[in-house]
């Protein structure tokens, strides 16, 4: 009996070890970084070993498949623009977004900005993040990078803002002033997509701020309502901004990444038709941005 119990105990420990295995762990200047393998799935995690702090995941056998919901949601932005030539990504994570876009648009220039040098290193070593002449990663604060890019009069067709995780939000990347700076970097048909949250009191403040800077915007929210993607352009969208003609072509292009553009299209909502936050919501500015306090309430 005791022998049998021991056997089962041993087996169950073995299974649990096989289920999640930390293959790399380091403490960077900003956070704890964990790389965890669970069978075929490899995930980048910040701070703790719980499942809701995953930053980036990929399947080792199918590295091109987008595992994360929000990375798929981000692809809805492609409905509103021609092929992007110059792409700016703020917040690297595992580099999956950069890899996917480099594959999808081999002629595009991609700049990844990441505040944490350790994250760049981990993306290279464990997530197959690749760089070449047209795909670069820079270690800098996103706000500074954008300010310097403005001085150099740079323009981007697609700016992806992916610097937020559940634990901590950089307060200076959510303000009206920051969004105005980012807006000034957009090319004529340029699009800015932000991956943020849809829960908490922050929702209203964030929505009001985007609306004030860009005008009406599109958004997509995932099933469990935890992520939302805000999509804006330089002059503000109108109801007809969605280009349905793009759908069939995008569908063939994106299928291999596990993206179903039809269902994403159906989930999009437009603030010009539905605006679900109070009109008098206070805007987030460089003077007032207690976003981490608001996010907990």
């Amino acid at each position: 009996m005791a022998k049998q119990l021991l056997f089962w105990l041993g087996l169950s420990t073995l299974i649990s070890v096989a289920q999640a295995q930390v293959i790399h762990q380091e403490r960077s200047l900003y956070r704890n970084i964990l790389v965890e393998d669970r069978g075929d799935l490899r995930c980048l995690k910040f701070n703790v070993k719980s499942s809701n702090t995953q930053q980036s995941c990929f399947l080792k056998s199918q590295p091109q498949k987008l595992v994360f919901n929000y990375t798929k949601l981000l692809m809805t932005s492609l409905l509103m623009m021609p092929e992007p030539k110059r792409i700016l990504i703020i917040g690297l994570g595992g580099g999956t977004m950069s890899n996917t876009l480099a594959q999808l648009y081999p002629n595009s220039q991609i700049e990844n900005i990441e505040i944490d040098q350790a994250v760049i290193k981990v993306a290279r070593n464990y997530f197959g993040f690749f760089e070449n002449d047209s795909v670069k990663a820079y270690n800098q604060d996103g706000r500074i990078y954008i300010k310097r890019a403005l001085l150099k009069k740079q323009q981007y067709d697609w700016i992806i803002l992916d610097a937020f995780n559940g634990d901590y939000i950089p307060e200076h990347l959510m303000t009206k002033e920051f969004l105005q700076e980012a807006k000034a970097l957009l090319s004529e048909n340029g699009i800015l997509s932000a991956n943020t949250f849809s829960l908490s009191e922050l929702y209203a403040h964030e929505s009001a701020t985007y609306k004030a800077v860009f005008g009406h915007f599109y958004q997509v929210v995932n099933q469990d309502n935890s992520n939302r993607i805000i999509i804006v352009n330089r002059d503000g969208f109108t109801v007809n901004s969605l280009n349905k003609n793009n759908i069939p072509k995008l569908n063939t292009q994106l299928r291999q990444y596990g993206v179903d553009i039809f269902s994403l299209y159906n989930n999009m909502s437009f603030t010009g038709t539905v605006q679900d936050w109070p009109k008098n919501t206070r805007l987030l500015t460089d003077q007032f941005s207690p976003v981490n306090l608001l996010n907990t309430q």
Partner: protein
Amino acid sequence: MGIELLGGRILAPFFGSSVHIWGSIITVFMLSLSLGYLFGGKLSTHSASLTTYGTIFLIAAIALLPIALSSQWLMEIIFLTIEDSRYGSLVASMVLFFIPTVILGMLSPYSVRLLVKSSNESGQVAGKLYFISTLGSALGTITTSFYLVLWFDINTIIFGFTTVLASLGLLAILISKVKGLHYVE
């Protein structure tokens, strides 16, 4: 401490929120406080009075104003001249926070001078002052970071601090004048 906390917020739009921002701010505050203690001590040896004490409060209040009124263009110039955000943030903290913090630092030794009546009790007086000023710093830190930033603009908070300092200064000067009148009688 309240100002120090806001410092991170004020610098972030130009110099980011990397760790070196806090390195710059804390360095400048420590440096200017240490010099403030030195100057305050020196000043207290020349006919110390409540009027001078109140004047230091008033000057501190005025020295804080540029943080709210001129920080934008000052930081813009620094951002344009210095490419490295470490040195940029260090210079910006120096320009914005050095002078007001030196002046605020002068208050501590000056208070000791005004309150100590005999060398026997000097240790106790200094102890009480440290107690009050450090406790005040703790309260300033928690109220600013937990509540004030949730309710007010940064500039409003700074103007609030300025008003409190200026009122304390005027109060000190008033008290010393009233006392002076009593002496004349």
